[in-house]
């Protein structure tokens, strides 16, 4: 059997397409896009420099303790991401899907949800998983190949990761329709659903159909599109002529573009959107304008298709750094606090490494388990025959 490395890096001689030098005008046209310009409609409450700004439609009352909590969430989930990335490099995971750069989009959206709300993730939603109370160790098996997600999606109200692009959007629309049919929509105690997908997914028919269905049935569904600017190698212009949030208008519901690197703005906008849905005013589209700071997956090599200058621009908009600056400036956090978060991150990283390197391989029976809810005698016979064949090896017959 080939090792993952053999197919992930087939062409060691591939020349990097990008350089670190200042881009020429042609390069700007060809690849270095104004991705850092969210446009006039961008909702922002905390600038990249850590300054609190106001917005006419959205604001948020946040305590020092709450903001320290958001900071801690973002630092910890970034550590999870970096540890998992490193575990892949050490051969402990087959692949990893980095969330680096999208911490604010995910922590802001995730912390806006209530326990009774439901979430449908794509496959990069490690930050959302964190806010749903999923232990990050439970993500590892998906990428190590021992399982396909071990949490209970009903108990956690967090659906399994969906890898086929856009599939989950229709599933989320259906779930939200069910919330409405069950009479759980209409007041402050109402339920809502959040669906996560990326800029690339907006081209899929399933996403378009999900917009149509949610609109027609007034479903309490927040479409949360993380526009991280890149669908593997394809920039957002490959998917759309107009800014993605503006698509909502065509389906008859509001679309809002929020600074996805601003955890306060993301939290404020998502809370508002969820409340609208609870009261029966859904669906709503949120485009979180952010940036994929790392590769699409550990198998990808972004130097082949994007300029490193773009990355440098976005480093200045780091979602965690701006919160740190604000916490310090407000004197809401001291050195001791930041040290304690670092210590927590170190501990979490160690737990992940320990857990990952000790994960047992699943038993062969797992291949055949839970294919059907009511069983299938033919499959059971196939299973028994195979397990008998395997035990022949164990008995030393061969």
């Amino acid at each position, binding site marked *: *059997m*080939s*090792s*993952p490395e*053999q*197919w992930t890096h*087939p*062409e060691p001689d*591939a020349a990097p*397409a990008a350089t670190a030098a200042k881009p020429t005008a042609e390069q700007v046209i060809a690849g270095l896009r104004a991705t850092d310009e969210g446009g006039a409609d961008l909702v922002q409450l905390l600038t990249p420099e850590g300054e609190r700004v106001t917005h006419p439609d959205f604001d948020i009352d946040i305590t020092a303790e709450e903001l320290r909590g958001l900071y801690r969430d973002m630092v910890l989930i970034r550590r999870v991401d970096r540890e998992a990335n490193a575990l892949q490099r050490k051969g402990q995971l*087959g*692949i990893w899907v980095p969330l680096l750069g999208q911490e604010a989009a995910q922590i802001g959206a995730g912390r806006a949800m209530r326990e009774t709300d439901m979430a449908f993730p794509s*496959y990069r939603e490690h930050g959302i998983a964190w806010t749903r109370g999923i232990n990050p160790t439970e993500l590892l*098996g*998906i*990428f*190590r*190949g*021992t*399982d*396909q997600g071990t949490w209970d999606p009903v108990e956690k109200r967090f659906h399994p990761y969906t*890898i*086929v*692009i*856009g599939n989950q959007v229709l599933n989320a629309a259906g779930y939200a329709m069910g919330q409405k049919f069950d009479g759980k929509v209409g007041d402050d105690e109402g339920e809502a659903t959040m669906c996560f997908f990326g800029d*690339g*997914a907006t*081209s*899929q*028919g*399933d996403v378009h159909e999900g917009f149509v269905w949610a609109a027609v049935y007034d479903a309490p569904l927040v479409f949360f599109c993380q526009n991280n600017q890149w*669908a*593997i*190698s*394809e920039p957002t212009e*490959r*998917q759309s002529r107009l800014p993605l949030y503006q698509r909502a208008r065509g389906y008859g519901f509001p679309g809002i573009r929020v600074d996805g690197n601003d955890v306060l703005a993301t939290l404020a906008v998502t809370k508002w959107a969820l409340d609208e849905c609870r009261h029966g005013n859904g669906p709503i589209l949120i485009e979180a304008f952010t940036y994929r700071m790392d590769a699409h997956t550990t*198998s*990808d090599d972004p130097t*082949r*298709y994007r300029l490193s200058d773009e990355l440098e621009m976005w480093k200045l908009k780091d979602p965690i750094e701006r919160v740190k600056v604000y916490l310090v400036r407000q004197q809401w956090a001291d050195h001791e606090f930041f040290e304690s978060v670092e210590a927590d991150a170190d501990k979490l990283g160690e737990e992940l490494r320990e857990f990952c390197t000790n994960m047992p*391989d*699943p038993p*062969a029976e*797992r*291949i*055949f388990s839970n*294919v059907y809810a009511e069983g*299938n005698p*033919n*499959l059971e016979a*196939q*299973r028994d025959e*195979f397990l008998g*064949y*395997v035990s022949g*090896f164990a008995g030393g017959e*061969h």
Partner: protein
Amino acid sequence: MAAPTMDRSTAAAPATPVQTLTISKALNMGLRAAMEANPKVIMMGEDIGKLGGVFRITDGLQKDFGEQRVLDTPLAESGIIGTAVGLAIRGYRPVCEIQFDGFIFPGFDQIVSQVAKLHYRTQGKIKMPIVIRVPFGGGIGAVEHHSESPESYFAHTAGLKVVSCSNPADAYWMIQQAIDCDDPVLFFEPKRRYYEKGEVDTTAQPGKLFESRVLRTGTDATLVAYGPMVRTSLDAANAAAEDGTSLEVIDLRTLSPLDLAPVFESVRRTGRLVVVSEAPSESSIASEIAAKVQQECFYSLQAPVLRVTGFDTPYPPSKLEEEFLPDLDRVLHAVDRSLAW
């Protein structure tokens, strides 16, 4: 459309026509040759342009042929196939890349409803010279939907032709022949064998596209396989030879239409047949071969036709794929059972 500007000297026949290539490189060269031969040949898919595809099969083609002949499409498989239909009606010969086997299903409707049926519906007035390239099969330690073998769905659909290459020479020639074909061709590429090497003679006269081929002659039993399982079957035949068992190995190459004449001829001599495939066995290519062989070779069979396949389950988490996928031991175990019948 602007004529492609490229340095022909690098694409001309090399000093020695026989080169050692990987399947991946052979496919790349085959695609390039097809694009040079016919300006109506265009490539469509996700990440196939600037990146050259996630497996680099289209590496360098957009650079040399331009963005109007190598399209980085929006991320939508139904869109890729559906617009290929329109382009084909307009006289183009689209070659669509589906990034991974498990992502073909958003395009399934267009393949089954339009690509497969337009020629029939229009009584031949519209042809569908579309190639749909699909890296397929497991063994690469991937996550869900990246290791599947969906070929039977397409072989089951009238109007489609389905082939699979197993070695670099076939990869080079078969992709060009598929592009030349006026029927739609599903072209299944054995992704875990992409980097296996073999000799390719770019001046040789290739065999026909829709033909099976005997790769190794033998007398005791016949193995039939396609795509990634051809290597496994050849390895099994080598191992069996050391134990004094002579296995014949046939590379199916074409799954629809099936070319079973070489299989019938072989089974009439050996009396025993084992079909090897990664796909689940129920209602599969392997089932069809078993049915046809018992019909045509009933009095020659010394044992029932046996199938060594993936199980009738979803593709499991990758830590279990060694158990799931047919390997040398499982093939030889089936051969033993057949011989002992």
